[in-house]
């Protein structure tokens, strides 16, 4: 699908790509710097050049691959779920992050350093390329633009990015929200699920709330009191429960709408749908309370 140049859809997708690049690209610059730091002075410049070249080549290859992979049925859904996980990971506070990354295994030779950089880029660039592929909605121009924007960030922009996010941490929250939105739109665009969504349009809203409640959980959990923390699990679990009944109803041709129910079994099923989650939620809350009480006791001891 090609979007019209400078249309609202094109500019929106481009903005999403820039934001995704800001929060996800740039890891390579860090790895290249860390690996090159452990080499002799003479080899450092060579490793930085070839490492950057390798990182860009790997990213370009993955970007081309992702265009084709996202057309395969099922991958759009998998990519959407992966983006939800990436958004959640992005927002999860990580106080020991700097210390962990400083302890990267040192590379002793030029070849080992180059190998480390290329392998690290292949692993760490997946999230970036996947997110760009999802935000671009299959537009080759946008994928190329996304790649073109991420390359300067890899090569020169790491300092700029770190200054920006340090000054405005809300960029990361916005990046997480955009990743979640991209993940949601990938899930609802999945070709395998498209006929199902046609018949169950209302489930789109349930999926949107589910995606946001899972991916933004680190954010809103930081604002919740200790007593309200179980909501982080209960809200997505309740949405999955409701969704499961809809899926089961269409799969096994069951009647779960009480307005259309005619037999006692259908009424029972409807009762289970709306009230069945209550004992499970109560059991979860009781278990959570027990675990909290035990941890309090052990902390006091």
């Amino acid at each position, binding site marked *: 699908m090609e979007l019209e140049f400078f249309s*609202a859809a094109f500019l929106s997708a481009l903005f999403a790509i820039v934001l995704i690049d800001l929060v996800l690209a740039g890891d390579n610059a860090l790895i290249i710097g860390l690996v090159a730091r452990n080499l002799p002075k003479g080899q450092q410049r060579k490793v930085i050049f070839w490492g950057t070249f390798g990182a860009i080549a790997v990213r370009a290859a993955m970007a081309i691959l992702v265009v084709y992979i996202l057309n395969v049925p099922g991958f759009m859904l998998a990519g959407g779920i992966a983006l939800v996980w990436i958004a959640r990971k992005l927002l999860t506070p990580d106080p020991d992050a700097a210390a962990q990354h400083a302890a990267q295994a040192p590379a002793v030779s030029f070849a080992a350093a180059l190998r480390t950089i290329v392998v690290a880029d292949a692993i760490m660039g997946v999230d970036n390329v996947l997110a760009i592929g999802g935000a671009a909605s299959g537009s080759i121009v946008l994928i190329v633009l996304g790649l073109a924007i991420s390359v300067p960030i890899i090569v020169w922009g790491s300092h700029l990015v*770190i200054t920006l996010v340090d000054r405005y941490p809300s960029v990361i*929250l916005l990046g997480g929200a955009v990743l979640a939105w991209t993940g949601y739109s990938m899930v609802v665009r999945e070709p395998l699920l498209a006929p199902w969504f046609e018949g169950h349009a209302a489930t789109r809203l349930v999926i949107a709330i589910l995606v946001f409640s899972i991916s933004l959980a680190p954010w809103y959990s930081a604002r919740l009191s200790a007593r309200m923390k179980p909501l982080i699990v209960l809200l997505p679990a309740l949405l999955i429960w409701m969704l499961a009944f809809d899926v089961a109803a269409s799969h096994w041709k069951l009647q779960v709408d009480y307005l259309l129910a005619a037999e006692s079994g259908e009424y029972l099923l409807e009762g289970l749908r709306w009230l069945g989650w209550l004992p499970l939620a109560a059991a979860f809350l009781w278990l959570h309370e027990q675990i909290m009480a035990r941890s309090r006791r052990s902390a006091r001891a």
Partner: protein
Amino acid sequence: MLLIHRSPRAANAVRTVSPGGELFVASVVICMILASFGDAVDPALFGEAGLEFALFDLGGEFSVLAMRHWHLLQLLLAGGILAAGIAVLRVGAPAAFKVLRPAPCRAIDKVPI
């Protein structure tokens, strides 16, 4: 992701974010959810339901239905306007309520009635 986690402030963005920035992003997220609600509701249902039903829901669902298939830039703009509105209310509402509160009985500017 590794790079931004190098900054202690960015790694704890959920705690270090400014109230204004947080309000803006929260407003954008609300607009995203409303837009997905617009996508989930079939406008044809309103036509079938009849005019009286539509009139009752004029202020609610109709405004959300207008957000169907909105793009990110539109959502950001709407989120910005919503955040600005909430910020104005947060500042203006206490001032408005302060005017309505009666002055103390012994205040010098109290008008005897």
